[in-house]
């Protein structure tokens, strides 16, 4: 079993929000990588598949909708996407891009941590099951 902590890719163009996510998630023991827009995010994913993608929708360059479409076409459901949106109907926004969850801005830190912890637990359980059955459904995909 890899000892590497669960990794989160934060795709967000607001520098302060990115720093905040890094601070909170790193503090909680996760590995955090960031991308200011969808194109850079795809490059980061090509290097290493994250355990979870926190995705802003409105970004300069490749926006959240385009990124989600591109990610799904390339990698399918290799990593869950959680939409982080200021939209009034976050649930609908998440459904639009086939996301696995959503966070409404402004959010509580605990909400973010709960969300990431739940995904990490799911990934860990899947990895453990994979290791037991030997099917090798590694989250680090390609």
């Amino acid at each position, binding site marked *: 079993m890899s000892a590497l902590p669960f990794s989160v890719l934060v795709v967000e163009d*607001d520098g*302060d*929000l990115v720093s*905040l996510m890094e*601070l*909170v998630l790193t503090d909680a023991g996760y590995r955090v990588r960031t991308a200011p827009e969808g194109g850079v995010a795809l490059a980061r994913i090509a290097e290493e598949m994250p355990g979870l993608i926190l995705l802003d929708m409105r970004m300069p360059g490749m926006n959240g909708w385009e990124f989600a479409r591109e990610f799904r076409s390339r990698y399918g459901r290799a990593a869950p996407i959680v939409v982080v949106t*200021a*939209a*009034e*109907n976050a649930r*609908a926004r998440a459904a639009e891009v086939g996301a696995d969850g959503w966070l409404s*801005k*402004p*959010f*509580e*830190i605990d909400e973010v941590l709960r969300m990431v912890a739940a995904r990490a637990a799911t990934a860990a359980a899947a990895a453990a099951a994979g290791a037991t059955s030997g099917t090798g459904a590694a989250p680090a995909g390609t």
Partner: protein
Amino acid sequence: MAVGRIYRWGMDSLESAHGDGPAGPVDARSVPGGDGAPRRSADWRDPGGRRGAPLLVAVVYVIVGLAWIALSDHALEVFVADPALRGQLGTLKGAAFVTVTGVVLFLLVWRRDERLRRFGEELRATLDSLGDGVLVVSQRGRVVEINRAVRELTGLLRKEDHLIPVADWAVRVNLRTRDGRPVAPDQFATLRVLGGERPGSYDAILRRTDGTDLPVSISATPVLDRAGRARLAVAVIRDASEAHRLAQTREELLATAAHELKTPLSVIKAHAQLLLRRADPEPGLQVIVRQVDRLTRLVQQILDASRLRLDNVELRWEQVDLAEVAAVVVTDMGPRPGGHSVAFEGRGGAWVRADRDRITRVITALVDNALRFSPADSPVEVRVGVRGGETIFSVLDHGVGIPPERQDRVFERYYRAHAGTPDDRGGLGVGLDTCREIVARHGGRMWFQSEPGTGSTFLFALPLSPTERGA
């Protein structure tokens, strides 16, 4: 409309004139009272003239006629000795009298008719020069006159297409409220005016013949007879597309601004929360978090209100027990600082077809209002009941109440009934407007009762969902 108030139009003639080309006012006499005497100017004379004119003509005719008979008979007796000749001359003078008076009467009537015709043309030209549409409706609810602007606004260019019962006219132009529902006949400003009401203007949408929608504002004024009864209703239809466009732009700007505020709010709040986790945090951090939450609520209110106005709202329909939703809202509010108590009364099974999130927001906003505007030690009572095919929600407070002169505007957007008074509790003035809009989109209605110093009750009714009614 001033013209409508000043002149009384001969309605029967108007109604019968439909088939004969342009219908026009055939009788335009001044109405006493109201605005007082008709406005006159050297250039535009009321062809009705003085009211006593016909009587004067008749009296003069009788006097002249009698004088002519007496004088001419006397002259014949004095100057003509032959009785046969006198008889012939008597017949001739009678014929001459009839001919002369006939010519005079013809000239009088012709002149008056000419004046009326010219006056009618001038009146129609005046109506046609107005930028607003003018629609005149008879007591029988039939459109009897329109101006050019009505034809241009609707795209129905033939006048005859408009001269139909006003209810049919509304169907023909697909008259709808701003949220898309057909305007019911009992809402028509003209029919309400004819029924003795004095409704204000209302916003509507009509469909032009080219298929485009036109936002309009409609108001109506009665034309009263001497007894003060409404003989006619004159509707003014104003093209509101420019105002509508400006309002759209304003709402879009507000929505964007509110949306953009959410990210900085997230960052501020999260950092404050992080700092709060440290040992011995600054007491001011708690205030920052609280105020950020308040800002967030205000931003959400603006977003809600703007989205509704921009028609950007998709309701997510589901079967909802209104009693359960209200109970959850009351429970979630928890004990209030300062001792407010919120009592809930209602039985389950108040099923409605609704968007749970939106209806929850409506109830939260109404209960929150009740709490804000009532003393801390007074109870607020929330009730949900079922009556006559409707589920009725009410929240009663023993608060400051709303002054009667401000009650008409309570649901108006950005209006704050207590602004500038000692009872001003802040807010944006969009809460009730938004609530009513949401309720309306659920096919329901919202209203209130209020007395200053005693308190207010805000209520809304939603149609009971069919499954429940059938049960």
